[in-house]
């Protein structure tokens, strides 16, 4: 399990770097697809089969297909003139290394002690994966789910406003 996690974590890091490092939009999008798929497999090794399926279908599938189609159809490469990459990435690298060293030092010296929540594998297997998720969403997390719907409504209004051509 640890080996599987290590491989997946490395995959996630490399593909995430690819999302920002590639110079052509279509490669960025494809790297994001790879990243999302890795995330789905992470869900799978955590025994969250339903989330795995949802992640593959919704994100890696539907959302990213839209991204790739739009990039392929509109060909923004012709509108985009990316200047030569500046030297900003050096700052990012320096601070990233410092940050990682601090984190690493802390973790190796002190170790991590987590605490399991209510949803242990045994508890989930007793009722079933999808049932457990559904019950959590519509009981314990009922209010956040409803707020998320408001969030989506407001986001849709904002997106339509920004995307519409000159109106009225």
């Amino acid at each position, binding site marked *: 399990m640890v080996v599987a996690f290590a491989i997946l974590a490395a995959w996630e890091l490399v593909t995430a770097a690819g999302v920002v490092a590639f110079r052509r939009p279509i490669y960025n999008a494809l790297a994001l697809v790879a990243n999302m798929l890795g995330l789905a497999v992470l869900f799978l090794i955590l025994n969250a089969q339903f989330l795995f399926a949802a992640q593959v279908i919704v994100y890696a599938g539907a959302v990213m297909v839209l991204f790739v189609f739009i990039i392929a159809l509109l060909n923004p490469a012709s509108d985009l003139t990316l200047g030569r990459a500046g030297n900003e990435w050096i700052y990012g690298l320096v601070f990233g290394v410092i940050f990682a060293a601090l984190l690493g030092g802390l973790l190796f010296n002190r170790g991590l002690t987590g605490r399991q929540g209510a949803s242990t594998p045994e508890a989930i297997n007793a009722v079933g994966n999808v049932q457990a998720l559904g019950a959590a969403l519509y009981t314990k997390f009922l209010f956040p789910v409803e707020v998320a719907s408001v969030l989506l*409504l407001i986001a849709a209004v904002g997106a339509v406003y920004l995307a519409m051509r000159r109106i009225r």
Partner: protein
Amino acid sequence: MKIDLSGLGIDYGAILPELIVVGTAIVVLFLDLLLPVARRRWLPAVTVVGLLAALIASLPLWGQNRAAFADTVVADSLAAFFNVLLIVITILTVLISPRFLRALDLDHGEYYILLLGATAGMMLLAAATSLMTIFLGIELLSISLYVLSGFARSVPRSQESALKYLLLGGFATGFLLYGMALIYGATGSTTLRGIAAFAAASGAAGNVLLLLGIGFLSVGLAFKASAAPFHMWTPDVYEGAPTIVTTFMSVATKSAAFAAIGRVFIATFPSISARWYFPLALIAIFSLFIGNLVAIIEDNLKRILAYSGIAHAGYILLGILPGTAAGFSASVFYIAAYAVMNFGAFAVVTALGAGGEQTADINYWRGLFYRRPFLATVMTIFMLSLAGIPPTVGFFAKLFVFQALVNAQIWAPLVVAVVMTIVSFYYYLRVVVVMLATPEEAVSEQPRVGISTSGVLGVAALATIALGVFPTTVLDWASHAASLHF
């Protein structure tokens, strides 16, 4: 499987103000669709009516402690206090909006919908007692504000500010979410009550996972409160966004963010205050230094006010440092005072901008007393209050925070704060001096500001002075609201 809803605490009364605000947003959405263009001025009226209803619905929550929906939100005095504060700010914003929007040809119904969405998010953030609702509240207010800062679609500066805010905001959200995930990993709970219980037990102060989580969570919250060194977006976004949006954003976002900071640090993690005291003190000192020192060299009034807002975030954070309800009540009072005076200052910039004038540059303000005596007078009041000169509310806000620090025997941040307050006199009084200077050219005829705008400005100026003369009532409310506990 059987689903049991009995212990869930479904309590619509506890979230009634938020429900009314969201409901008003939906009504405005449909009205915007159905009303003919000539009737579009109904939209701000409907918005104000909805907000007034939400204001009335907030009042019964005062003095209660109603945890609702499986501990994800609470209806208590702090929530009621911030509901009233945020709704009043929004109402005042809506009252001065139509004139400004028409002047810039931005009179679209979406403005009111997004404003209501942002208000609902902020109210939710102030009432949130679960990591999930804190996150959703922040996202709701952020997404609304991303679009609002880019509301002037044909103005490149506005678009630039929206993009900057979106990218940096997304980055900060990453930190916030990572921190929440780590806190959940350490404590096994998403509700603040459960997390507080874990933190109160022995061994929590040495739990690396929990401390890292708190650190990342603080970064995300400090970004929203625009405290240094997470303030980089503030001057550019404030400058580029339409002034009316900046007015709302600078005041309301900071208030809501500090309500959440109070709930997290004062109510949830008082037991490990020795761990978060130093980083938080550092953020406060950074904010005081950067805000006050950079404001001196700026020549654009929106940028001066942005840096002054960063400095004020530092003062508000000082009240959190003692980790007690008494200190937090000074912060809550400061937030209310800051809301009144900073709203007023930006509203003056907005009022000048309603004539489509190039107003943000300080040279434009030269001799304003001779051209617009009313605007210049209220601006002077707001500037004196922001500087903290008696008998304005800004003086007492600073006094109470300093008092809280003395009581808690916290000296180093106090010394920095006092010195930086004296430094801040320079740039606040500079604005007053510039307005008093003799104008270089002949006075030309200026458009009038309109009744609603001057009414709002007058109310804000009166409140700035009245609260400075009688600060005790609001201080009592603030200390009642700040007595948080789980």
